[in-house]
């Protein structure tokens, strides 16, 4: 577990490098979601470059597609493409590594970018896999600001209606979106109750940046047989970026200055070493 924690800090450095090198990206959401992606790709999901066409592989859709830098870092660490190639080419002219997920790249199932698409698409995947009696699981990660999209609730409705126990949705609940807090912009209070009302199993993860807590939640989700699970992971936007960045809406898509880059890198190194020594 401490290895995975350390990995999540190391992969944030890759994200920082992509963003610094290209001068663009969504660093705040990248840093809040990284631990969720690491837990999914290195602990939960049966996905690798070797089985990428296996119909029984687990399926993942990054619904908050703007966190693509973290997604690239994780896919690179899984061996889908070299991370140096991503850092070098992210967002540059003619690059395959564009600013949102696209399925021309190995390891990416569906294109995203506009919000409110991941969960509905995953409903279709879960229905199809269940139809074929497959034992794989379907995962999506959404942002919390994304929940204002009506299509998300169409999908919550369908997931409950069809009892899709092979489906697990994760909400990266960092509480911030581009204009401010989610509660100011469009309130999500009683979120767990709202989703439970659609006949979903809901698990609150108090520290959504803690891989051990996330692991327990994903394991618990697998034991539920009659309904889909939604994990509400309470994360910190800009997590592990240090005081200058953590919990600040302004870092939604800010590009760090040279000084900030050094500060954030030092913080990531410090946390990675601490995790390794745990």
């Amino acid at each position: 577990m401490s290895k995975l924690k350390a990995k999540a800090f190391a992969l944030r450095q890759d994200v920082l490098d992509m963003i610094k090198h290209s001068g663009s990206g969504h660093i705040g959401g990248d840093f809040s979601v990284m631990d969720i992606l690491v837990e999914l790709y290195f602990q939960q999901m049966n996905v690798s470059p070797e089985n990428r066409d296996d119909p029984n592989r687990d399926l993942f859709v990054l619904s908050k597609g703007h966190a693509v830098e973290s997604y690239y870092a994780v896919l690179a660490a899984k061996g889908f493409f070299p991370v140096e190639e991503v850092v070098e080419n992210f967002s540059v002219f003619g690059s395959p590594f564009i600013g949102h997920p696209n399925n021309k790249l190995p390891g990416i199932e569906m294109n995203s970018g506009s919000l409110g698409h991941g969960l509905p698409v995953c409903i279709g995947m879960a229905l199809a896999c269940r139809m074929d009696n497959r034992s794989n699981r379907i995962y999506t990660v959404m942002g919390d600001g994304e929940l204002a999209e009506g299509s998300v609730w169409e999908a919550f409705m369908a997931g409950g209606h069809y009892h899709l126990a092979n489906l697990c949705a994760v909400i990266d609940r960092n509480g911030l979106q581009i204009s401010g807090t989610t509660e100011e912009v469009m309130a999500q209070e009683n979120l767990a109750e709202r989703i439970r009302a659609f006949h979903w199993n809901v698990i609150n993860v108090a520290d959504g940046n803690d891989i051990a807590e996330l692991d327990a939640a994903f394991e618990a989700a697998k034991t539920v047989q009659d309904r889909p699970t939604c994990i509400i992971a309470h994360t910190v936007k800009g997590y592990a970026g240090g005081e200058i960045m953590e919990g600040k809406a302004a870092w939604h898509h800010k590009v760090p200055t040279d000084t900030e880059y050094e500060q954030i890198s030092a913080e990531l190194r410090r946390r990675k070493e601490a995790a390794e020594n745990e």
Partner: protein
Amino acid sequence: MNKVPNRQAICDVLLESARGDKNIVVLCSDSRGSASMTPFFEAYPERSIEVGIAEQNLISISAGMAKCGKKPFAFSPASFLSTRSYEQAKIDVAYSNTNVKLIGISGGISYGALGMSHHSAQDIAVMSALPNMRVYLPSDRFQTAKLISALLEDTKPAYVRVGRNAVEDIYGEADCPFTMDKATVLSDGGDAAIIACGEMVRPALEAADQLRQHGIYATVLDMYCVKPLDSEAVIKAAEAAKLVVTVEEHAPFGGLGSMVSQVVGANCPRKVINMALPDSPVITGTSKEVFSYYGLDAEGIAKTIMENLGWQAM
């Protein structure tokens, strides 16, 4: 008079094909009745998905199923399917390039007096603007069946629009020439080229008959494949004619007329008249009444051609 609407022809093909292909799935948004898909839901309940009145979800769920190897046919009134869920068609079908066949039922002004909310006069324009998306408006039940059979053979996205009511046959069961993405030439003539799609093919053909009585000879193309447009057939017909007339049940912008005009303008400049619905909510009435009011019937088409060829109108 034929009593079988084109949507019924789609159901018949899918019912037959589903016997040998378990991956064919049908999705409806509380629209199985209007889609004529109730027989499929009854025959294959395990392969029929009801999503409720949620057209966005309809398309995204279809895309997810396609990603997992299914061959989804998503049915919803063309008005809602094409604009309510346009972004899902753009992202989850066209951009992700999933094998989803979008079937817009009750297309055009099929719903007559129900008003602009229920009319799809923009669907050709919006769907054609999406990369990877193909757009088809078959003219009769036999061609519809051939088209659906052809679409079952490929794995690319497509949008198909059919009307609500049965339309008179253009072809016969054993006499329906069909080549995928190639227009069907219904008549040959050197005076005018009439290029039509969907339910406008029948009045175009009848207009050509009327014109012939006046010694005016028109080529009639059934351009069911609006995208990819059969440019070769357009150029050939236009080159041989003094005048090109397009006829479509669609807004005057971005549809068959716009596309034909682009091709003719670039390759063999001729006068092109685009006959279409107006740039406004259409007048209240049945399809027949509305078509007649806007000149989208045999008489209106023939009159337009005669006038533009310098003949005195009938």
